[in-house]
Structures are given as C-alpha cells and as structure tokens.
C-alpha cells in the first residue's frame, strides 16, 4: 500500500501537477468547496430545511459587509428569511451529489455498452452506436427538459419534490451515456488487437473477465479526461433544469433553484440572493473545467513527448 502511494507520488502525473500552478489552485479551491459542502450540517450556522428557525421578519437582509447587513447573517438572507450562507452550503452539497451520481450512472451505462459493443462487435455494436448517434444528435439538455417536464406534469407537485434528486440523476445520467460508450468503444477496438488480449483468450478466460479485468484498466485515461468535463456539464445541466423550475424544489434548494428563487428580486435591488450562489456555481464549474484541461494535457502522450 505504501509502495503504491510512493509510486503514485513519483509518477509523471503528479510531477506535472506539481509544476502547474493553475491545476494546484483549482484543485485547492475545489477541495475546499467539497469539504465545506459536505460538512454543511456541522458548520452551517442555521438549518435551512428547518422551517421553525426561519423568521419572515429576517427576509432580504443584505450581506454583513453592507450598511444594512447584520453580523448573524454573513451572506445576508433570501426572500423567506433563510440564511444565505447555510442555504448555499447545503445547496452546493446537493449540486455536487447530483453531478457526481449522474456521471457515475453515465459511466456505468456507457462503460458496459461501450465494452460490449467494442468487444463483441457485429449487430450489437451497430445497434448501440446508431442509438448513440441519434441520442447525441437530439441534444441532451433538450431531452432532459422534455423528460422532466413530462414527469412533472404527470406527478403531483409534492410527489415530484420528493423524487426530484433521483429524477435529475436518472435523467442527466441517461442523457449522456453515449459520450462514455463511444470513448470506451474506440479504446476497446484499439486494445482488442493486442497480444495480451489474445493471451488471455488462449488461457481460456471468459469474455466478461477479459473485458472488465484486462481491457477496461487500459482504457482508463481517456475515461478520466472526459469524466471531469462530464461532472462540470452535469452540474451545469442540473442548475439549468432547476433554474427552469424542473429540478430541485425551492424548499430544499440546489444552487440552480436558489438562483431561480432570487431572480425576481434583482429588479428590486436584492442582488445577493442571485449573485452569491451564481458566483459559487461558476467558481465550482470553472475549477473542474481547469482541472479537466490539465488532466487532458497531462495524460496526452503527444504533449508529454513535446516537453
């Protein structure tokens, strides 16, 4: 175990990380966001889900550094009198959970379909790749909007708000599996011809073992590259869907639904209800995208050779 850690620390991957300031700073900010968001129940000054602690008299108080701000609400309050800091911490947690779980689902579907398509080939391959082509041509955001709109119209509002997180993960997860399936299939087609796969087949291993234990580990670097971008995209999609009122309800808001709930108040001057969660959202996505750029360069053998 120790040896593995030492090997990882001495790898090219970590070497390039240590030389790239942008990557280090974005990683630090991202890590801070994740840690703060997941310790929200411990560090948040208020519980935004507890209706009894919310006082409507506290509504629309600006952040503490403004003239009318109050020290007990560092980032001000929203229109219902909820503390913005606590709500944002909880909301960031929901956004990250949905982003990561949706990508895990895309991975699960995409890896299975991509591996099987690439390894088995034939009709299965052409069927799934056609399906992937068609699904990608239909725009994933549009699919997600339509699917959620139908679900929302079909369920009652209360039933929907309980299911919202699961629905969002399912919809965003299902909408983007072709990205993984195509990447994996392309790698599998390249790996399949190599000797180690022949060797595994000759000693009598079954197709599932060869696919998951032998080929899959050799296709991990393109997976890592698209995964960072996919998490950023999933978080954006969640925010967009919640902003449209098709995602997480305002009672347990994610960043997108918080921005939505504050939108009508920017005209009356309460900018912070929208602006602060927006800044958190943009910073979160930007850090993931910058890390994704770095991962792509660090794992690209072409660029590695140039240096």
């Amino acid at each position, binding site marked *: 175990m120790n040896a593995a850690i030492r090997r990882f620390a001495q790898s090219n991957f970590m070497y390039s990380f240590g030389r790239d300031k942008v990557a280090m700073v974005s990683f630090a900010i991202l890590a801070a966001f994740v840690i703060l968001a997941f310790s929200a129940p411990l560090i948040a000054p208020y519980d935004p889900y507890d209706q009894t602690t919310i006082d409507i008299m506290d509504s629309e108080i600006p952040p503490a550094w403004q003239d009318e701000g109050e020290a007990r609400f560092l980032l001000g309050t929203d229109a219902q009198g909820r503390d913005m800091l606590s709500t944002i911490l909880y909301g960031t947690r929901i956004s990250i959970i949905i982003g990561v779980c949706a990508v895990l689902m895309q991975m699960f579907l995409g890896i299975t379909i991509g591996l099987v398509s690439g390894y088995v080939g034939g009709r299965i391959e052409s069927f799934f790749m056609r399906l992937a082509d068609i699904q990608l041509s239909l725009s994933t955001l549009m699919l997600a909007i339509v699917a959620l709109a139908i679900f929302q119209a079909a369920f009652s509002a209360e039933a929907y708000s309980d299911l919202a997180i699961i629905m969002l993960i399912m919809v965003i997860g299902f909408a983007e599996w072709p990205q993984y399936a195509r990447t994996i299939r392309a790698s599998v087609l390249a790996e399949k011809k190599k000797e180690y796969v022949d060797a595994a087949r000759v000693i009598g291993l079954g197709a599932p073992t060869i696919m998951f234990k032998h080929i899959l580990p050799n296709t991990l670097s393109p997976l890592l590259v698209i995964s960072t971008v996919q998490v950023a995209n999933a978080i954006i999609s969640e925010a*967009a869907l919640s902003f449209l009122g098709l995602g997480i309800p305002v009672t347990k808001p994610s960043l997108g639904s918080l921005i939505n709930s504050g939108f009508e108040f920017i005209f009356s001057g309460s900018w912070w209800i929208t602006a602060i969660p927006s800044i958190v959202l943009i910073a979160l996505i930007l850090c993931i995208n910058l890390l994704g750029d770095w991962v792509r360069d660090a794992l690209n053998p072409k660029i590695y050779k140039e240096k």
Partner: protein
Amino acid sequence: MGPPLWRSHVCSRRITIDYLVFAGQRLLQATLVMFVISLIGFSIQDNLGDPLRELLGQSVSEAEREALRDEMGLNDPFFVQYGRFITNAVQGDLGTSYFFKRPALQVIADKFPATLDLVIGATLIIVLISVPVGVYCAIRPNAWLARAVMGISIVGISIPVFLTAIFSIYLFAVTLGWMPSFGRGEDLVEIFPGWKTGFFTKDGFAHLVLPCVSLSSIMLPLFIRLIRSEMREILESEYVRFAWAKGLAPKRVWFLHALKNTMLPVVTVGGVQIGTMLAYTILTETVFQWPGMGFLFLEAVNRVDTPLIISYIIVVGLIFVVTNTVVDLLYTWVNPTVKITGRGR
C-alpha cells in the same frame, strides 16, 4: 484568387450507388426517429390528464362519461388510437390547446418567428466572431492575445447561459439602463407573411441584443476552441507543409488551403448544434420573458396543456431530425474522404 480547388472537388463528385444507399438509410433512420418521437408524443396524450374532464368538467355521471369515451374512441385499442393520432398529425392537426382554445400547431407557429430571431442573431454573432478569432489563435498559438482568448474562453464555457442572461440584465438593463430588460419591443417589421422580425427597427434591435449575446455566450467559446484545434491539426498536415515548400504566400496557405478543410468539420458540428441552441432558447426566453416557443413550452408544462406540450415536442423533434439529416447528407456528399459504407465515424 487562384483556381477554385475546393469547388472542382464538388463538381467532380457524382451521385454514386453507394451514396444513394447511404441516403436511403439516412432517410429511413430519420423516419424511424420521427416515429419514436410521435409514439412518445402519443403516449403522453394517453397518460397525461383526462381529455373528458377538460371537455365536461366534474358533474357528469359515470355512464354518460363511458358513452362519450366510446364515442370519442378513447376505448379503442392502442394502435387504432395511435393510427388516428398519426393520421391527424400528418394533416397538421395536433389537437387544440386547452389554454389558448386554438389549434396547438397554430399557437406554436405564431411564436416561432420570435425564437427564429434569437437563433439567427446568435448564429450571426457566433459565425462573425468565432471564425476570425479561432483562425488567429491557430495561426499564432503563442501570442499573448491568443493565450488570453483561450483563458477567457474557458471562463466562458464555465458560465451557464442563464447566468450570462441574468448578469447582462442586471448590468445593462437594471444598473446602467442602456438596454430593455424583457420582451421583443413594440416596433416589429413583417418581412414575410406571419414572420415579424425585430432586426430592422431600432427598438426591436435593442431588444434583441442582450438575448442574442446571452444565447451565443456558451457556444462562442466552444466554436473558437473547435476552430483553433481543427485548424492547428490541419496546419500540421502533409499538404500544408507541401504548400509551404512550394513557397506560397502565408495568406494563401492559411485562408485558401487550410481554412477550407478546417471549416468542413466545423460546419457539421454547427449543424448538430442547432438542436442544442433550441434547448438554450428555452433558458434565454425564460430569463428575458421572450415570447417564443421555449417560453410557451414551459408555460404549457405549468398549465398541463397536453396538446401544446405534444406539439412542441413533435415540432422540435422534426427540426432536429431534418437539420441532422440534411447536414449528414451534405457533408457526405461534399467530403469525398468520408467512408459511406462504414458504421459510425
């Protein structure tokens, strides 16, 4: 301008048997996709809301309801009902909107020009900016300006469309008061029967600026990056090296030899992105209360106006399928290197 290299390619390309087979497959696929979309649309109609309640209200006895269900054919087998739905749909009848009390397709047709205005404006912005900027970044990858553009573009990709829209409203409409914050304005010109556009009046144009900029904000950096990377790849290729070796002028190599082959994949991606842009119009129209199709769709969802929801899905599905098929057919025809018989690209 020298001999039109690229055009001679196109002219020499004949329609072959291979191409006809490919086109046939593509059209078959398009029909199949539209069939699935219509099936989805129909099953929504079947499961969402009760058409009888919309017609009669609550105070009608169970026996009368059942008689009316029979009369309207609601008790027929699934495929009989679907057949009726598709026959009407092909004739342009997708039901009557519960809210507007008018044919649903007509309601959408009324709102379509507003969305078209947005898409045209955003496309113009993207084409006029991304091509020169992307080409510049590819030709001078190490210039500080190119690096700055790449840096800004990753920030651009990270800001969701609806936030660009909100911030531009806050800055230019609420704080500075330079631009109107919502709607299309009063002063529109009818350029075709039924298509009123805001491009030709001062008021209409002012209303278009912020929504179009917001709509283009996420695709512009994507296209700049795409053009840059495609062009850099092309500039490394053998035929460009040969052009340099012949001693051609840089401008000729860049803009005549390299740019044409760069634009081919870019145009294909662009065609596919029209669908994505339609999805983003829903966001932009919501923020700017733009009276287009996307805004209409969300209102229809909130009112559970089933015929309108179905019509929107079918109209948008048709736009997607038609643009994708046309782009695919053109691309394969123009680009002789594409393997027609190959599965997937």
